[in-house]
């Protein structure tokens, strides 16, 4: 194992960055933020209040991501001694499976940006966004939307956690996890900046609708590329 050689370090940084960017393209959190902002504007709430709700939503989302990532890191850390070198194929196969599911199931067919979520869950989140009045509720909504994304985010997060356990010094885990989660919430921050800057929600939603196929294919292609990269990385004997 060459945990701290320059070559493997940059390879690990590239893989972690790719997983974070892939996770940032997932859309439940952005959809709920759009709904939350729409209802807030529709109820004539002030710009300050809207910004407060949006920021609380982002903090809730970020906090839940950090908690989940921490839990996965701990789980991988306790299991890492039981994982043999032959289990590396999981890091290649799991992203490929998720990429195929993204291609076939992530968006529903038809207009809009309706996602894979069961309609009852989507209706519940829509209703919660409508009933969110204070920052605490907004914080919880952000946390809930991060959790609902788990079926798709669990693979990039687990793979990242595994690579972190093997190649990143424990003292740097918190910093790397924070940067990872910050990259994941970047679309939420950008959406909030656009809304606070006076952009119309319809413009943001139209962009999302027009580019949903691009985001879907980009996420799947990046997952496939990352899986291939890991495969080459491992087969060249750099990792183990």
């Amino acid at each position, binding site marked *: 194992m060459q945990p701290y050689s320059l070559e493997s370090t940059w390879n690990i940084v590239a893989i972690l960055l790719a997983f974070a960017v892939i996770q940032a393209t997932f859309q439940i959190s952005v959809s709920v933020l759009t709904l939350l902002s729409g209802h807030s*504007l529709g*109820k004539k709430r002030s710009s300050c209040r809207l910004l407060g709700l949006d920021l609380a939503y982002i903090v809730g989302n970020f906090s839940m991501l950090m908690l989940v990532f921490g839990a996965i890191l701990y789980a991988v850390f306790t299991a890492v001694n039981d994982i043999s070198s032959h289990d590396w194929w999981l890091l290649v196969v799991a992203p490929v499976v998720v990429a195929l599911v993204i291609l076939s199931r992530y968006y529903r067919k038809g207009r*809009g940006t309706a996602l894979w979520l069961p309609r009852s869950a989507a*209706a519940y989140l829509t209703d919660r966004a409508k009933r969110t009045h204070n920052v605490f509720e907004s914080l919880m909504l952000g946390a809930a939307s991060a959790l609902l994304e788990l079926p798709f985010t669990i693979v990039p997060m687990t793979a990242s956690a595994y690579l972190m356990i093997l190649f990143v010094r424990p003292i740097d885990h918190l910093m790397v996890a924070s940067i990872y989660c910050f990259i994941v919430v970047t679309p939420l921050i950008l959406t909030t900046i656009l809304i606070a800057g006076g952009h119309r*929600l319809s413009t943001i*939603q139209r962009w999302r609708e027009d580019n949903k196929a691009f985001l879907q294919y980009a996420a799947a292609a990046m997952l496939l590329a990352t899986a291939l990269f890991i495969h080459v990385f491992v087969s060249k004997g750099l990792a183990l």
Partner: protein
Amino acid sequence: MSDTYVVKSGRHDSEPFDPLKLHGSIIAACLAVRAFEGEAHDAAEHVCRHVIDWLEDKTEVTSADIRRVSSEFLATYHPEAAYMYEQHKLIL
């Protein structure tokens, strides 16, 4: 109050059509795209009148019908609001 009944999505029961509810939701859609309040009220008023005319010969419609027809009428007065109104159930 109209004699037309509205069947809500995912439910079997129906409720009488309430123009005030429609008026409120059109205003909210307009405000969500940063329309002025007067503009929102005008658009909502016009759309409600059109929808009431459209319902004249109908005894039962679905809430999805109301949303579709309202967004078609709203597109004349405020296209951006119409887009958001139509998209509401399609965002998530």
